[in-house]
């Protein structure tokens, strides 16, 4: 077997470390080494977005990142979006209320894109929302209710401020 490399990461606030194959993709490390299965694999070519995570504050498609290169990084996965005290984040709540997903497989990409957009633009219009999620494929919803969910989430979050 090839030599391993030691990495240390923070995932959803928890310190993690492992000796990994240097060829391992970050998505494989997150799923198989560290057990966060909510991050999905749809294409492994960076096109579908099902593997989206947040790495050091930026959203990334984790199939395009080598796990070794993320050493020392701070990661948030779909499991880390909801508040620690239970319940759902307003973006998650809106996706449930507006039927913003069907099979659920694309949710990592859609939720992180929504969070990223609303953080930088609290009142996005339809075109801005469509642009923000255009890196992610969804095959079930035709994007209609995803757009509506993000509009609803943004309005609710603005009203709550």
């Amino acid at each position, binding site marked *: 077997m090839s030599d391993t490399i030691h990495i240390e990461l923070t995932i959803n606030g928890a310190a993690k470390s492992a000796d990994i194959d240097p*060829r391992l993709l970050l998505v494989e490390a997150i799923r198989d080494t560290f057990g966060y299965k*909510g991050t999905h694999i749809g294409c*492994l070519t960076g096109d579908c977005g099902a593997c989206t995570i947040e790495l050091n504050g930026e959203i990334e498609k984790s199939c395009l990142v080598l796990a070794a290169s993320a050493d020392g990084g701070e990661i948030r996965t779909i499991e880390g979006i909801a508040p620690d005290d239970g319940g759902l984040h307003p973006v998650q709540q809106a996706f449930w209320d507006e039927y913003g997903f069907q099979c*659920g497989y694309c949710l990592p990409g859609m939720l992180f894109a929504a969070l990223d957009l609303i953080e930088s633009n609290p009142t996005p219009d339809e075109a801005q929302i469509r642009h923000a*999620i*255009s890196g992610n*494929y969804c*095959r*079930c919803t035709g994007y*209609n209710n995803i757009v509506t969910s993000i509009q609803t989430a943004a309005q609710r979050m603005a009203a709550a401020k």
Partner: protein
Amino acid sequence: MSVASPYPKAVPEANRYIGQRSRKLKGDQFLTGKTEYVNDLELLGTVHMSVLRSPHPHARIRNVDLSRVRQDPRCISALDGEEAKQHADPIPHFISAAVFGGKYNDVRVIATGKVTYRGQIVAAVVAPSRGDADALLDLIDVDYEVLPFVLDGDEALEPGAPLLYDTEGWEDNVVIRIPFVEGDFDAAAAGADHTLEDTFYHHRYSTQPIETRGYIASWDPRAEAYTLHFATQNPHPLRWVLSAALRVSEAQIRIIAPTIGGGFGLKMPGHPEEGLTCVFSRILGKPVKWIEERDEALLLGAREHFHRFKVAFNADGKIVGLRNHFTANVGSISACPGWGMAFLAGLSFPTGYKIPATDVVVTAVTTNKAPWQAARGYGKEGPQIVMERIIDLVAEATGIDPAEVRRRNFINKDEFPYKTNSGLNIDSGDYHQALETALKLLDYDGFKAKQAAALAEGRHIGFGIAFELTPESADIPGTIVGGYDTSTVKMDPSGKVTLLTGVTTPGSGNDGGIAQIVADTLGVDLDGITVIQGDTDICPYGFGNYSGRSMVSGGNAALLAARDIRVKLSKVAAFMLEAAEDDLVFDQGKISVAGTDKAVAIKDVANVIYTLAFATAHMVEPPLEATRVYKPDNIVHFPDEKGRIQPYPTYSNAVHVAIVEVDTETGKVDLQRFGVLHDCGNMINPMFVEGQMHGAAVMGFGAALSEECKYNADGSLAADRFKTYMMQRANEIPMVEVEHQVTPSPFTLLGVKGAGEAGVGGAAGAIINAVNDAIRPTGARLRRTPASPIHVLAALKEAQ
């Protein structure tokens, strides 16, 4: 012929849930990443399979040499086709063409003798990790005798074309030729004011759920039984398929389908990898896992039709005859149900139009492309696109408005049930009203002026209309495609309800819809209901997910089962409340006496039935469990005097409208607005129905504009990843604007019709018509899908 329903039409009195926009069950689990898909399961001791695929579209396998791979310490097991034959018989065809008089060919888990498409499995290995298994494929040496190949359907029909199969009965490449002929077309054409002839090519495209296929097979040597965690739409039918191929009884196979990340037909049974993981697991006594890669998923296409049609019509726009002899290039033969789409494409003509003489013949031809697999629409989407082109061509030729030509040819609302030329018995509808509503959605009347103004500025905008008829919830006789289904409802002694059903959800939310029916029937809260689907050892027998059947079959079966439980609760509650059963109202977890404040909690009645079976509840049979089947009316399998059968109980319909702008410099089509009027009868949950239509319509956008399983001349797939197989992205498309019309089915208990497949063909048809409307001033005509820049430019150039 209409058949009266033996069931009362009544729905429960208190509709807290039926017809409401209840949220998806367990939505919070999905949203927090807790839902388990097949690739998330980790069974102890799992090893991983990878398959070697043929690099040639057509070749004889002289020899497969596994000696080098077997010497590698990472190799746990390896098989070639001849060895696999020792462990598995041919895979039964899910829908065999032979049942309908067509040809058959053995399909095995690994090819033997020869390969007929690039990508066919020739060997397989198992290793500790998928990465190792993939790497080991390089150590397999296969000696091929390369043969001439054919990719084009018409070329495959020519004399002297390479023959794919040299087994008995294959004197040519025709899989099956099916005529749907009624009336005298030639006489109709001779007597008509006009005729026109043209062609239309409906290209090959595919399903592509974001979750690919995935299987984990576990053979337990002590119990001598398989447990299969398979991402499948049809657990019980798959059990039958695998039992035959693997030489075990169905009782030795338990299939557990976890949450599915989208299906759309791809995850219907017959794939060689299903049986192959089982074979390895039995050899090794360990769980064997295989997850499909995207380039593997893209091998499986659907729909490649070349239509040559002749239409006879009068000056008033009335169509009197249609001849359409078309080929369906179904690729290589597989055990999956894909080829059947060709059959249903022929059967579905002429959709919702009254045409006295029809001469439709479909020829399914096998070629050296990869097989078809079922795809949403299941063949019915093609006729929508072609019929709607035909209507627009008649409008152009007569100078009559295309909407008016539709009005003049539609079946009238007072003519239902209406028997079509191919023998379908269309249940109900109001197509004229549907058209008017759809036209208003995008202001059809105001468009002509906008179009003229745009053209004056050199911009080409167009409006497209497409009617869509969607036969749903099929039962195909002699196959494992059933139109009925089974549901079990149980209420436990604490009053909680468990619902088990033979239909499965690929993500659509039918679990929630069926639970809504049960909640209202029993007067309980929706969140007190647990739904179990997809487990062949636990769930009642059922056919799973296809053909928009979940509410029609599983939903109505659950209604019947819940009513059986309700009858018992009612008897005991009447005794407890000293009231007449007719006066009882079931609502909000209570059974109360109408007009009084007397009431008892349903959970208390349930408890009495379990604990006082010989006293208070003496008059009913415990426990509170009921299993019922629902067989919808209107399916007729005894052939009529003309030999025609009627395999569909329900016929949803829709009218789609699209506005596009075509850039004549670049060939790019910009879809600016899209609307659809949808009628699928009564809706259990309009939000779920709309979700189905949104998704199907956008698949239709992809079909019309960008998705294409393009092949290279050497027989390899050019579109083998998402960088080359281009699905629609959110920023390329507008909202799908949906409106409903409700014409209940007279043939199903709840008045529901199928929903889920409608949208693909209608949306594509509207867009193709809109593109043609936009480019009409240039003299060009687009005679194919997709309207991607290269094909639009070719059409424009041809007109110059």
